[in-house]
């Protein structure tokens, strides 16, 4: 379980007029399945996610993942419990897909890859259908393939908790759907707990088990998709007129 207690982050100098505050957020994210973080721009979704992934310091409050205090635990301990992938990934080093995924094993093997590591790497690559591409360099891949390679890296890390910051960014329809299906499989078949920031509420409704809606730095809604996919709830969260209709594959938010 991921539990946040009174977590807050202040941007800008405290007390100043232009300072933006995220939180305080207190929420429990259950183990297993996919939890989607949704909300308008600037609601604090990515901030909360990066704080859970200890890439951003919290100003106050505490975060526990599977009973470990993320804020104060050594980074190398946390790296075996959770993995996080941020939006922008650019490496100056030139890497093949397999080398990149191999770095996912660093928390376990400290860079000395064992046979066990190689198996995990192969499994992660196969899982994301990158087998044929594993010898290619990242700069020879399309955006969608590269995104899959990054996800393969955090899966190879073999952590119970996987945090992803907008992994569907810049993906076309086909690749976005594929990515979500693969994450669904990671949750169902591998038992990973996936927390994901999504922009498209319909993707969240279709593929996630829990939706956590944020607005102005605080959590405003938290529940299964059926509860969130309501005209009134979505309109309030997104400041937009939203109509939920019954689509062929579940509820569909219409807001165009």
């Amino acid at each position, binding site marked *: 379980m991921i539990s946040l207690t009174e977590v807050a982050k202040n941007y800008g100098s405290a007390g100043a007029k232009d300072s933006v505050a995220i939180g305080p957020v207190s929420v429990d994210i*259950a*183990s*297993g*399945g996919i939890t989607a973080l949704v909300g308008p721009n600037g609601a604090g979704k990515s901030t909360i996610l990066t704080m859970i*992934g*200890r*890439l951003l310091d919290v100003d106050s409050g505490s975060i526990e993942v599977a009973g470990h205090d993320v804020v104060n635990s*050594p*980074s*190398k*301990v*946390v*790296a*075996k419990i959770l993995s*996080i992938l*941020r939006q922008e*990934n*650019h*490496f*100056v*080093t*030139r890497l*093949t897909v*397999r*080398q990149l995924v*191999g*770095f*996912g094993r*660093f*928390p376990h093997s*400290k*860079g*000395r*890859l064992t*046979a066990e590591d*190689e*198996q995990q*790497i*192969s*499994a992660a690559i*196969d*899982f994301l259908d990158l087998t044929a591409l*594993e*010898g290619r360099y990242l*700069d020879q891949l399309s955006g969608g393939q590269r995104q899959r390679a990054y996800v393969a890296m955090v899966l190879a*890390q*073999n952590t*119970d908790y996987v945090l992803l910051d907008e992994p569907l960014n810049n993906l076309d329809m086909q690749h976005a759907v594929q990515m979500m*299906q693969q994450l*669904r499989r990671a*949750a*169902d078949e*591998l*038992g990973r*707990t996936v927390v994901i920031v999504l922009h498209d509420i319909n993707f969240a409704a*279709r*593929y996630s*088990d829990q939706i956590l809606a944020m607005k102005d730095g605080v959590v405003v809604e938290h529940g299964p*998709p059926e509860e969130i996919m309501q005209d009134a709830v979505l309109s309030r969260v997104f400041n937009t007129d939203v109509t939920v209709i019954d689509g062929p*594959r579940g509820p569909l938010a219409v807001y165009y």
Partner: protein
Amino acid sequence: MTAQLDREHPRSSVRTTQDGEAQAGDEQRSWTGETSGSRSSSTRHAGPITSRKHALRYWAVMGLLGGLSLFFTVGILSFGNPMPFGSSGYWLIAQMRIETVVVIGVVVFCQAMATVAFQTATNNRIITPSIMGFESLYVAIQTGAVFFFGIAGVTMVTGLPQFLMQAAAMVLFATILYSWLLSGKFSNIHIMLLVGVVIGGGLGSLSTFMQRVLTPSEFDVLTARLFGNIGNARAEYLPYAIPIALVAGAVLWWRARRLNVVALGRNTAENLGVNHKREVMLILLLVSVLMAMSTSLVGPMTFLGFLVATLAYQFADTYSHRMLFPMSMLIGYTVLAGAYFIMRNIFYAEGAVTLIIELIGGIVFLIVLMRKGRL
């Protein structure tokens, strides 16, 4: 999108099964079990060398560079030796020249390791420690001594205590700059680089200003000291510079695997459990030690580190620092020893070694870059 992806069905099953570590472990084992069974995992590996061809190319380049290094070393030691071969005088002269070879080795060791490590820590492949104000500080100290104390000032900055003081000043300067910039609210490597460049530029202007006011003879003495000068190196510092450089280099080598991760940037490194800020601070401290050793020995070598690191990335084509460090050192040794050999025996101007590095090295660098099309 069939039953497998149906939300209702997997969700309920996951909730009931997912509540213990052992459970998760079991499921993850089945992950590798079912996939690796279908194919042989022995042919698939993720090491720093991607293929047999890559390995061959790496060792071929290393062999070539090793051969060239040996050639230039023998050349420096024996070419133009006035005494007949085999006589005691011949060996005496050769022994005196060994000092030059050692200086070249130490300088290259420092510059190559420092530049590669620095570019890894700062996650860029353009800026080198030379640009970050290290060498301008050296120039400012030397110029200041001559400016305030005249030609006698040159002797004031020579000697072992002065060497250690100067090295300490450079390391201190770098450490204060880094810790201030990396721990403060900036905590941004680009701002640090910018501040470094600005400080470097400021110190450079200060030195230029002081040099303007010097008398011609003072200026002449100073110039001789500021030019990257292998033949006229302060060899008396070698017994101290070598162990210090070796220790710094050994620490970098020992942490090479972490350097590989640091090169992926802050977010990825932190995700993989590397304390990025601490690691970067340590690397930059070691870099400043190495740069201080190199600069105190032979003065500024602005372009060498950049050239050597860039060529090493091109030829080695790997993330592994244990492969990059040796290659960058061999490239550096070939370039510096070659430049010294040519300048000394063809142009009789061994004092101006940096000129040929910047000229020929720059051309080689451009050719390699144009052909590969990336840094």
